[in-house]
């Protein structure tokens, strides 16, 4: 299991060091600094073995988190734990920065003591942790409160405490999708997929039993009603631990008791019938050895009544670019020498429209034999629909013990489609 956990700043100074196992010595702290943080070459693997000691590392802004072990641990678990650790810290004190870590180091030690015992991860749900790791001491608790805490931390529903009350029962569902595309210069889709998340913010009293429904093809086909054409084929989905997986496996129904506040209910992935919100048509022509002509057309491909926002097209330029002249019909375009790219920004664009940019790129003559690699043209945008076609059909809430019903709950649904890696080769 995990033998120790270290947090460093970007210079390699230790901010937090907690050793769980006897086989991890103090020298491990330095070994990581010397071999990874100060290494001359960029690290080639997130798992580094130094003198029979394995270091798992992740970096968040300038901060390095490293888990150390000498055993054959479950590697996936170690990384999941490190991410979780980041989540917990963020939930407690915001951004993970050197400043914040130093200011909260006692809290971090307390958390590390609680969520990792002898290197075995324990309950790490912030909802539960916040009930008893407060940095305020817990002497004022009554006996009932104490046993409520321990039963929550160890219980079947470790993510929610009892006795939550809201005057207004309300929930928000965000369907957040990122659409990924790799297209050939000729407009052939090389790969495309949507990875989506359903994020729920719940402000519900008691221990509400929820049931979530969407236009999942398998469910709709099974019910045999409704229009099968509006259903979508989901390649795979994963759920927050509150969802009863065996029930999903047998009936494909998504039922759960949600944590309080914001959390990610599910993630899913689709590859079929994706609505690609934009199409990029590139035209790059090399005029002699010192000039490139670039023309890029973007076409929006959704209902004209909808508006896409924050559109950005990034056209890479060769390293030996000496000057660029850009003309665009819409938005603003600029050559950014430091990024080796022409960045074209459009604030808003309605569906079924097209826009065009053309640029002349002057090149310095070089004797570099290697041809320019022509990185793909990438795009960023945000659209107010789900490119996968996913629709929320219902979210039913039952709380038998309290006197509010499904109708009393105020529900909000929002769809946001963003570009993931949306690239067109040129």
């Amino acid at each position, binding site marked *: *299991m995990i033998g120790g956990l270290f947090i460093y700043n970007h210079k*390699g*100074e*230790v*901010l*937090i*060091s907690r050793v*769980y196992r006897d086989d991890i010595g*103090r020298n491990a*702290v330095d070994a990581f600094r010397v071999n990874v943080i100060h290494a001359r070459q*960029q690290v*080639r693997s*997130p798992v580094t*073995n130094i003198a029979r000691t394995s270091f798992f590392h*992740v970096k968040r802004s300038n901060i390095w988190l490293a888990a150390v072990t*000498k*055993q*054959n641990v*479950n*590697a*996936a*678990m170690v*990384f*999941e*734990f*490190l991410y979780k650790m980041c989540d917990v810290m963020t939930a407690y004190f915001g951004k993970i920065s050197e400043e914040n870590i*130093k200011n909260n*180091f*006692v809290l971090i*030690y307390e958390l590390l*003591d609680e969520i990792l015992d*002898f290197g*075995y991860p*324990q*309950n790490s749900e912030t909802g539960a942790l916040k009930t*008893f790791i407060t940095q305020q*001491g*817990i*002497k004022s608790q009554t*006996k009932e409160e104490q*046993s409520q*805490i*321990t*039963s929550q931390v160890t*219980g*079947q529903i470790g993510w929610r405490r009892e006795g939550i009350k809201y005057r207004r029962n309300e929930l928000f569902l965000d369907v957040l999708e990122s659409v990924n595309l790799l297209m050939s210069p000729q407009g052939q889709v*090389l790969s495309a*997929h949507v990875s989506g998340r359903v994020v729920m913010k719940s402000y519900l009293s008691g221990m509400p039993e929820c049931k979530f429904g969407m236009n999942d093809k398998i469910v709709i086909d099974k019910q045999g009603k409704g229009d099968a054409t509006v259903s979508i084929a989901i390649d*795979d*989905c*994963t759920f927050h*631990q509150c969802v*009863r*997986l*065996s029930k999903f496996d047998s009936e494909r129904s998504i039922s759960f008791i949600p944590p309080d506040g914001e959390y990610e209910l599910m*993630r899913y*992935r689709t590859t079929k019938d994706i609505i690609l919100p934009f199409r990029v048509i590139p035209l790059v022509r090399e005029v002699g050895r010192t000039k490139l002509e670039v023309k890029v057309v973007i076409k929006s491909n959704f209902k004209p009544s909808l508006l896409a926002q924050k559109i950005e097209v990034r056209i890479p330029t060769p390293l030996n670019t000496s000057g660029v002249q850009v003309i665009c019909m819409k938005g603003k375009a600029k050559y950014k020498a430091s990024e080796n790219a022409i960045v074209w920004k459009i604030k808003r664009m309605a569906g079924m429209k097209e826009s065009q940019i053309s640029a002349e790129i002057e090149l310095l003559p070089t004797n570099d*034999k290697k041809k320019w*690699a022509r990185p*793909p043209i990438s795009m960023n945008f945000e659209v107010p629909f789900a490119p996968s076609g996913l629709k929320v059909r219902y979210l039913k809430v039952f709380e038998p013990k309290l006197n509010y019903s499904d109708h009393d709950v105020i529900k909000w649904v929002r769809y946001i489609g963003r570009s993931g890696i949306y690239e067109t080769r040129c």
Partner: protein
Amino acid sequence: MEWASQLCENRQFGSKMTDSKYFTTTKKGEIFELKAELNSDKKEKKKEAVKKVIASMTVGKDVSALFPDVVNCMQTDNLELKKLVYLYLMNYAKSQPDMAIMAVNTFVKDCEDPNPLIRALAVRTMGCIRVDKITEYLCEPLRKCLKDEDPYVRKTAAVCVAKLHDINAQLVEDQGFLDTLKDLISDSNPMVVANAVAALSEIAESHPNSNLLDLNPQSINKLLTALNECTEWGQIFILDCLANYTPRDDRESQSICERVTPRLSHANSAVVLSAVKVLMKFMEMLPKDLDYYGTLLKKLAPPLVTLLSAEPELQYVALRNINLIVQKRPEILKHEMKVFFVKYNDPIYVKLEKLDIMIRLASQANIAQVLAELKEYATEVDVDFVRKAVRAIGRCAIKVEQSAERCVSTLLDLIQTKVNYVVQEAIVVIKDIFRKYPNKYESVIATLCENLDSLDEPEARAAMIWIVGEYAERIDNADELLESFLEGFHDESTQVQLQLLTAIVKLFLKKPTETQELVQQVLSLATQDSDNPDLRDRGYIYWRLLSTDPVAAKEVVLAEKPLISEETDLIEPTLLDELICHIGTLASVYHKPPSAFVEGSRGVQHKRLPARAGSGESTESPDVGQSVGGADAPPAVIPSQGDLLGDLLNLDLAPPATTVPAVPASMQMGAMDLLGGGLDSLMGDESETHNIHQRMESPSPQSLSEYSHPELGGDIGGSPAIGAGMGAPPAVMPASLNAAVGGGLGDLFDLGGGVGMPTGAFIPPKTLWLPAMKAKGLEISGTFARRSGVLQMDLSLTNKALSVMSDFAIQFNRNSFGLAPAGPLQVLTPLTPNQTIDVALPLSTVGPIMKMEPLTNLQVAVKNNIDVFYFSCQYPISILFVEDGKMDRQVFLATWKDIPNDNEAQFQIKDCHLNSDAATNKLQSSNIFTIAKRTVDGQDMLYQSIKLTNGIWILAELRVQAGSPNYVLSVKCRASEVSQFVYQCYELVLKN
């Protein structure tokens, strides 16, 4: 905040925190100050002081001097302060064992606290105090906590048992904590169950043979129930534990799989991977024709693909595991090629892994897409990645024949870019393509030659030289090209030197007239001016070959090379199976078994995949048909080798024996071995030579350096005297030698007709090994025997010459099982003409070892006052069967399962009219022991074990059908090459 000032100080003193010289001066004041604060009456001040202490501890300062003062703060109701003090204790208790005892009372008291959080805190912390004296005091509180009413305390106590076990395993056993821990598996709280499972699994790892995790269907059921209810981490512990269980049959296996599959939808990737591990393992047991098997395969793909949308570090872990899964069960992901396409801003470690998997999944169906991708990658920035992409194009060409042409033209395009490392990498792979598809793409050689000057890496230079040598006849200026390399011969790496030597010899054999000087030059560079034994050896071999017999040299050097295999760098199957059992863990990331990177006893235990249901009935496995068919083939192979020898012989006979000057009789035995041994392995056994040659010629790109051949190095390079001997034409007669071998092989197959002994081990009749006409009148026939544990070579020496023979001596060349004379050849009186003498030469098995082809080949040199003679013979493998070869039944079962099915060979023994008991007795007398007998449907199955002198175990299953003269023999051995010989041995023993 104090932090800032402390870190500032550190910086002042440089990053070396061990620089105590500075610290002692400044720290004294600081420590003094802290001491005062710790003893302050004000609670807040105390707490601040402890915080400062912890901060100092973190940055690596030694604050152990404050131990008593900090421990004094322990008695407090402020939980936060208590936690800080405990943190301090865990760090320094070991260095201050005497003072740590002061803390015991507090722990004992805290374990009785009404607040469960405090009880748990105490039990959690005390397990981390690694002081022997204290440990004993902690047993009672721990015992109470294990039975605490609060689950939070119990789950913490469960882990504490593992902690205590790590400190003092004996104590844990004596106190009966293990039983209590086992009881916790049935606890009502899922988290307690999960932690108990984790603790027990860890303890069980250091006791590989204990039955600690007594997994049975009932306990498995409990675990599966807890699986649905516990935290994500608990699910991982339980799944990892489940993976160690071996279901009793396929039905149980299926029902566990059914209950594990829902975990594939968990948001936590580790839960998913651990579930995949359980499924991959248990799937082994499911019959392939089962519907559920297919369903399960289909269910596995989507979650594996989903793992690729996780954070990059997890993607890396997932990809390393997918690499294993794709090798084990390619069908799962065969349609998912696209998801492994590299994204422009993937981290480099993800890119490299994806590339690996792309090549593994490449097939005719998707090759066009793959190639287009690879071409894109070859223009990227990262040098390693680009190289790998170029190499991948070559591998695609080799793997998918239809794409070869397109691959070659892509590679040519890349060569045109003139980017140095791209060109070099392309040339290396083109060499492999030439190997795979000879005489197809040689038109590109001209383009390759243009880039000769830009090659600066040894591998690329070696590849280019190989190409020039191999196609010397089509390259007009091949001699010039090779000569240009020769100038800096000694500055080249060994790889290039060896290749250059071979290439020039090839060139010479193809164009002998104009390159004589060149070959002389390279041979003298290699043999006289080089210190590298490999190079010298190869030089000498070529030299001798060329000077003795250019025709044979041509046969050997320009022999047709065997095709290279499609898949390279596959993980060896037994290791792959073991790694499948470690999916998700570090072992699967490193692609190494845990024993390779874990110290101590933990994880050294090898894990195995369960055997498929009913694997005992091996007739069901599809590969049987092949094996049975194959049983007839090998005998045909060896005679054909004899033919080959015969051909060589005919060629050699053309120049009459004048090239064979007699070796002076005074020649020392050692020297004889030197020459004879070396040459024997070169010429006496054609196939061996062929083998060596092919290894020289066909290094797979990764591992040329592995292919050195110490067996030759020992024989030739070892002696300084040899240099002198080399100048003259070597003094050995290949013609007679080959004939002898040919004869020996031919005779071997006459063995069947001999008479056997009714009792005792079967001893084949004597056969003629060395005919008189080949050995100046000395005729040798002989056989091998094992008599009450002693190995003997029975020889009959007959003098068919006209003069008396004396001064006999015998020596063996290295051989597969290290056979060597255990004493001198006892021919006491001179052998008069027409006299025959029988000698029994005792043998030992401790001689030098070299793998022979065939395995049981033995090359012998016999000397007398007239000359030295060489012959080779084959011994029945049965002489190596030792008397204590009876295996324990349990061990037999385990071993049978342990040996991979691929190593199983099946043979048919026809026309044998013994019943199973008679066969048992007969085999037993040859040290083939029957361990168990099972009768199913009138068919007797005999399970037998054999142990060889070198400790190798051979397991066999002999099936005797009553009334049928045909037996079926299945042989399983880790060294599967012996199976064939074991079969021959069965044949001989049973039919005589």
